[in-house]
């Protein structure tokens, strides 16, 4: 009897604890703000100064703070002269690093190791500075969801439904690529229609080369979308390297004549490249002193 009571108490504690965390997680919306995969070297890997003909390691820590998984990623080191520093392998890949979610609220952390070999200094040289780039490329996605009001009959003063916002701004959806603004344009009358203009911007540290539209729905129905200024494949856009923003235009005919509230959902995938600049110093062990 006593054991039964203990088991029940423990079970109750476990259940209450789990229920409490689930509820807390549900309250927390990961898909907000600008977050991304954090990339860094572990302390002393590589060391700040390397002596000639020695081995060292690069340990790259990938900490996904975005709300979405990073997939098909690769980490590489470029820009080192192989005469001074050889890196084996030059790149390492990863399949998936999970983003922050109910199951992984802190995000997934991943480590990659690359081995380095220092060469010899040029005769008489005191040191050599090898500047290099740590490049991380991966694919990811971003989802945008909001509740919107649609009012096809703008001039109906007796419609006491919702109030439509012609323009609304957003801080981000938990990824570097963000919907920053949505404009709503209603075409009233018999053939009424709604047009949404999604302003997309890369607000992260890296660069986005292309964006693919995976899906756009108003309520449960598909929106007809195209990226502004695009011909051909209207659901795919390549961003300019310097101007990392674009506009997605989505339209849909309206059947209802009265105002109503519904959900607007957008699903985008993109590639992402983060570039970090680092320096390795190959230093001679000999100290020289000359007369002036």
């Amino acid at each position, binding site marked *: 009897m006593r054991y039964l009571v203990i088991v029940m108490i423990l079970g109750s504690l476990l259940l209450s604890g789990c229920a409490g965390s689930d509820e807390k997680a549900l309250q927390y919306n990961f898909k907000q703000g600008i977050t991304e995969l954090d990339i860094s070297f572990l302390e002393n890997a590589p060391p700040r100064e390397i002596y000639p003909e020695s081995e060292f390691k690069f340990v790259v820590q990938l900490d996904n703070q975005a709300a979405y998984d990073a997939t098909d990623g690769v980490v*590489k080191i*470029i*820009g*080192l*002269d*192989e*005469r*001074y520093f050889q890196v084996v392998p030059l790149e390492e890949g990863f399949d998936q690093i999970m983003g922050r979610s109910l199951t992984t609220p802190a995000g997934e952390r991943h480590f990659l190791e690359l081995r380095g070999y220092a060469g010899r*200094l*040029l*005769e*008489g*040289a*005191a*040191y*050599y*500075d090898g*500047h290099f*780039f740590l*490049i991380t490329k991966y694919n990811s996605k971003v989802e945008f969801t909001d509740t919107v009001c649609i009012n096809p009959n703008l001039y109906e003063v007796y419609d006491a439904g919702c109030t439509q916002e012609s323009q609304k701004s957003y801080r981000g959806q938990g990824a570097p690529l963000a919907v920053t603004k949505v404009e709503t344009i209603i075409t009233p009358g018999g053939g009424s229609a709604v047009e949404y203009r999604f302003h997309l911007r890369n607000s992260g540290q890296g*660069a986005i*080369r292309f964006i693919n539209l995976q899906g756009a729905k108003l309520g449960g129905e598909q929106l007809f979308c195209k990226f502004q200024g695009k011909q051909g494949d209207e659901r795919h856009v*390549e961003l*300019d*390297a*310097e101007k990392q923003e674009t506009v997605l235009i989505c339209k849909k005919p309206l059947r209802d004549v009265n105002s109503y509230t519904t959900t607007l959902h957008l699903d985008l995938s993109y590639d992402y490249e983060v*570039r970090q*600049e680092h320096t390795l110093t190959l230093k001679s062990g000999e100290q*020289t*002193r*000359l*007369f002036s």
Partner: protein
Amino acid sequence: MAETLSKEEQDTLKRRLLKARKERERNAATGFTQFERTVAEVQQRAAEPHSSASAARTQPATTTERRPQLASGRSLPSFSGVSSQTAEREALGMGPYWILLGLGLLNFFLKMNFSFYQDQISSVAILVATAFFFWIMIRGLPNYRIKESVLLIAIMAELLGGGLLGFLPDTSLIPFIKDILFGVHAYAWALTGVLFFVMGAIEVKEAGRKLGLITGLALLGFVALGFFFFAPSLLLAPWDYQQQSHQEYLAAIEQQLEAGTKQVKEGALAFYDPLLCRFSTSTSTATLGAYDDCLKSKKITRFCKANFETVGERTKCEEEQRKTVVAVRGIDDPTRSQPMKAEFIVSEFFPKESYFTADSETTLTFPIQLKIANPRQQSFTVDVSCAFRQGTYGEEIPGKIIGAGQMEIEGIETEGVFVCEAPPLEEGSYTLIFKAEFPHLLSVSRLQRAFIGEKDLFWKRQWIDTIRSEQFSGGAHLSQAPADFVKLHFAFGSPLENPIIERTSGIVLSGSVENTGGGEIKSLSHYALDLPGFSLNDLTCLEGSLLIPAPSKSKPQPKRFYLPTCVVEQLPADLEDPSDYVLREFFGEIEYSYIIRKEVPVSLQAVAFVVDVPTGEARS
């Protein structure tokens, strides 16, 4: 006064006085009127013997000048041909002559910097402008006719000098004439300015005015320069007793002036080249750019003639120069910044004055310290020698280094003392020359390039500026040479200084060697650029030797020598189209022999042989 004149003369004078009064009434302007001159003449005539009256009439004197008188009473002919008008002009003083001098020097400067070779129009413009301004300036000056003649001679000298140079054959006799013609051609207007300046000084002096201090100093300077160039032997003796620093100072001036002449010889002022090339390339079969090629060819020929003595050397020089010459720059390698140094140090105990007895064989010795910094720890040998020279142009009499005269260098710092034993010399002042020769020195330069291959616009926009700023900041797009005596600079790219290599086409490779050590390059036996896997149109770009002209008193050694320029035809496979970009460092090496000199003035004095024997009294 009237009693000493004849009746006829008195009537003549009265008529002239009357005429002069009328003239004074008409012209109340300042200056010397006929009336005043006549009054002065009458006064002078009254004081003179009667027999010289007619001579006095033909040689009127002005009140403004006092000319020396001949025994006959006739005044000396004036250089300035004075008149009342000239007296007014003389009031200008030396101002116009300073301007003329400035114009002459300006002409020389313009010739040096805006060469005739490069621009035919500018050459004509410089000549016309100079002649025009000279003419404007001399119009208001005394002795206009004489000065005008000098001006015409200057114009002719420049035109003829330049013209004749093109037609003189190259024989052993002709170079002397060519040198004179080059000199006239280069300095024609500067000399004309000086000549006018001297004439002006004489005119002002004759007018009874004093010359200013600056003018006086300038004249003295011209005289000194005249001696310096035309009678150097007269100046040699006093020089021998001057301090070394004075000699060096004068040598520096000499070098500056000689450098100007050398530049002229090497082609900067080839006035006739554009004309000759214009004619020779005016045929219908001449290709596009033939005119430029012709000009370049002539400049190369002159450069090689000016720098090399033998036909073989000149031919090799021309071959090297005909390959495209590109000035390649470089920077000091910050990772190898410790300079290589070698210096002779004269101690305070150095016997600047030595004494020897004329009747015995006294050995005079002179010690010197050689200090070498070898930060890159090369292994090499230094050969030290010494010689004595009397005067600036005297023959060098070799001395003897007591002991080995060599020093092996391996460490970072090395010091050694060498003692020079003088050969039997006469009493006098000498310049003791110590030479340290460093054979087979090596210097390695490095150059970084980033190979990107064929990339799209997105990649280029994203990366090229970043690569430049990260990998090539601080001048790292240029080759980096250690602080050695001689530096090798090299580069390749499209253009040369672009460190981003996109594709094979249009990549040029070139290099140069720069002497920064303060000494002279004796030889440059080998240069090599390590570009593994590269395919070039001419392999002499990658490896070879350079002909280095030895310096002489008239020809200082150039500071920079050029390596051939080539075109890269094919990049190594791994650099042609990398997936991202590849940074690669390349090395170039030179092997050279170098000479460091140190000149020390010494004085050798003969003394009588005296034996100081103490006497018995003194001892007691």
